[in-house]
């Protein structure tokens, strides 16, 4: 494998791995805090059990998230030294603030996990909330760094030099808001659906039903509300990139020719050589409307971009379809769930709704990975859009392929162990956590 490809793949794998743990670390503390709140208010032990069970899971995810994040902060230099040499001082501001957020998160988590019955009950609860808020903040901050790569600002690029650096301006670049918003909601969607689905599965199996019902409801409400907000935020993102990165929008939509009243293309097989899409469903005017708010607006196509600056169309297009498709599927499930909550209480008892949630377990995370693929691959061939090419940023060290194999092996083994651990946590709920169950230890 050639070193440049290996470096890109290693970066992608490491981030793709980290993001899962990061999202769970951002969102689970909120679920826990809600359950914990009900426990302190109602003194219903089931809520305490749910909180404790979840906090175990969080500890596992948090540790994995922390080590994979540590690896990333080195990998940026190990794989992309030329990039970091110039970008570090410019987009470093969010990273230095993020350090603080991580630190607070780690400290608060120490209080939270080890503080049961040791510190004041409400102070203990508050530390859980702090874990969540600082996690969310760190997420927003890293995304600000990433969005700077999409929309570089806060410096003047003159004759290959980076002058007049303004780190604050770089942090609040044009892409920052839409990306951070979309990311935060995505974290809630993916974690909410995954957690709700797992508890739904246990309800279907008839195990510790009271426990799982309470857990399910908390996760499902977070997940479904977020799922309904996601398309709105996605729309903001789409309008945003129509302005800031038209070539990315064109690649997402496999939109080869600049035109007015541009159709929205669903599915299909992009044929880059001949600049057309085969077997696609086309909805006239909709792309123009989504990008500009006007059915007759002009949408730039790939023909406006020099050949060597075009992002890979097929990957970006498929990834975008996957994200939106799954997003819509989750909106549908959410609507059914709301109907069940308010109008048709009987649906709650029926199996099919729970089954839908079980099917949806991986959907959010797949959409999340797909969305990042859209953003990152759609930025290619640039690492800093319009300023530095990815190929120019890669490390001169040969043999990166081996490092790629090594890290891939590590990440695969970690995923297996984490899944095993999680499986055990879930199947042991009856024994370890559910104090209302007959076989309880507590």
């Amino acid at each position: 494998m050639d070193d440049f490809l290996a470096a890109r793949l290693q970066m992608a794998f490491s981030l793709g791995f980290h993001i899962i743990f990061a999202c769970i670390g951002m969102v689970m503390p909120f679920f826990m805090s809600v359950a914990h709140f009900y426990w302190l208010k109602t003194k219903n032990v089931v809520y305490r059990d749910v909180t404790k069970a979840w906090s175990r899971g969080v500890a596992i995810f948090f540790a994995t998230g922390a080590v994979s994040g540590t690896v990333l902060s080195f990998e940026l230099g190990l794989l992309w030294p030329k990039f970091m040499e110039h970008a570090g001082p410019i987009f470093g501001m969010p990273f230095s603030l993020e350090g603080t957020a991580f630190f607070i998160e780690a400290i608060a988590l120490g209080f939270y996990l080890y503080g049961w019955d040791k510190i004041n009950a409400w102070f203990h609860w508050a530390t859980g909330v702090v874990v969540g808020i600082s996690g969310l903040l760190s997420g927003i901050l890293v995304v600000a760094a990433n969005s700077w790569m999409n929309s570089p600002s806060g410096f003047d690029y003159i004759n290959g030099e980076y002058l007049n650096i303004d780190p604050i301006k770089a942090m609040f670049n044009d892409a920052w808001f839409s990306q951070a918003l979309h990311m935060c909601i995505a974290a809630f969607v993916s974690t909410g659906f995954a957690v709700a689905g797992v508890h739904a599965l246990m309800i279907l199996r008839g195990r510790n039903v009271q426990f799982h019902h309470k857990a399910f409801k908390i996760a499902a409400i977070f997940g479904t509300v977020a799922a309904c907000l996601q398309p709105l935020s996605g729309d903001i993102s789409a309008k945003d990139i129509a302005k800031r990165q038209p070539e990315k929008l064109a690649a997402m939509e496999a939109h080869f020719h600049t035109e007015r009243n541009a159709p929205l293309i669903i599915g299909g097989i992009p044929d880059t050589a001949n600049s057309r899409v085969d077997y696609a469903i086309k909805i006239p005017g909709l792309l123009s409307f989504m990008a500009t708010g006007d059915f007759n607006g002009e949408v730039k196509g790939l023909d406006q971009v020099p050949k060597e600056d075009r992002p890979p169309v097929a990957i970006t297009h498929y990834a975008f379809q996957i994200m939106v498709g799954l997003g819509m599927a989750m909106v549908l499930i959410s609507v059914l769930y709301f109907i069940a909550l308010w109008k048709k209480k009987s649906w709650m008892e029926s199996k099919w709704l729970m089954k839908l949630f079980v099917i949806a377990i991986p959907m959010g995370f797949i959409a999340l990975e797909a969305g990042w693929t859209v953003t990152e691959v759609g930025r290619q061939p640039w690492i800093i859009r319009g300023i530095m090419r990815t190929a120019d940023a890669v490390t001169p060290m040969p043999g990166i392929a081996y490092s790629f194999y090594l890290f891939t092996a590590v990440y695969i083994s970690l995923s297996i162990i984490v899944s095993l651990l999680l499986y055990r946590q879930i199947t042991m709920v009856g024994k370890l956590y559910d104090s209302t169950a007959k076989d309880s230890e507590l």
Partner: protein
Amino acid sequence: MIYVVIVFLWTSILLYILLGGADFGAGIIELLTSKTNKPKTRKTMYKAIGPIWEANHMWLIIAIVILFVGFPKIYTTISVYLHIPLVCMLLGIIARGTAFVFRNYDAVKDDMQKIYTPIFVYSSLITPFFLGIIAASSVSGQIDPQASDFLSAYVFSWLNWFSVAVGIFTVSICGFLATIFIIGQTDNDGDRQHFVGKAKRTIFIVMFCGALVFIAAHVEQIPIVDWIFGDTPGLIAIIAASISLIFMWYALNKDQPISLRLLAGFQVTMILFAATYTHFPDIVLLKGGANLSLLTHQGQAKTIASLGYALLIGSIFILPALGYLIYIFQQKR
């Protein structure tokens, strides 16, 4: 502002060695403990370190962030030429962090423990070893930006007797810190005696490994003697550290865990001080003498200023909270 940033960089490295080091040491000690004493060591250690282990490792991240934001040239030079030991260290960090949590949080305690535990103890050994190698290599003058072949650019930049000796020395320091730390965590006399005995033995090991560093430096013709003894503050630091060993011996016999910890912290601080002072502001020495200096290779003024403010503001939040965390869990052991 640049000095604020440098102080933060130095302090985070120091705290990583002290807190993270004690943490790595816990695994190393477990490796060197006889089978019968293993459960005892492990339990005492877990109680002591559990709540703060995550925070201990944040210091490394802070140091890295300071480097890449404030001193990008230094960060990238290290990343390029010390790629291999960095990857080894990262693998150690991954293995250790995850194994620590897995073995304490697995819902079922079964044969999987037999997998987690060796991973944990061996990675506790590997990580500080490579950390030492990286630190030593950055000052050993073997990094050669002009090198044209793979071996001299990416391997001999770090593979030499001096770096290896410093790696071993770092491991011994971690073990030393952990034994000193654990003395204060024991809750009965028998255990305490056991760990005091261990601490005395580790002191000799550390001195032995320190001697190895000097020998290796001599072999590699690295003028470490000149660096440390040729310069008054460095010399004073080393003498102070040696004198404090005498107090330490006394404190070990008298069972004063708090002064023990302070003394151990003092010694390590002095060693780091002596090792860095002579070179300041250079922190990466290259072959041919084109050194990278914290002062000449700093980022632009605005970057350094905002980094400095971010660190200052951050520490207002972090330090009290961290102090309180440690306080609470020391109180209610």
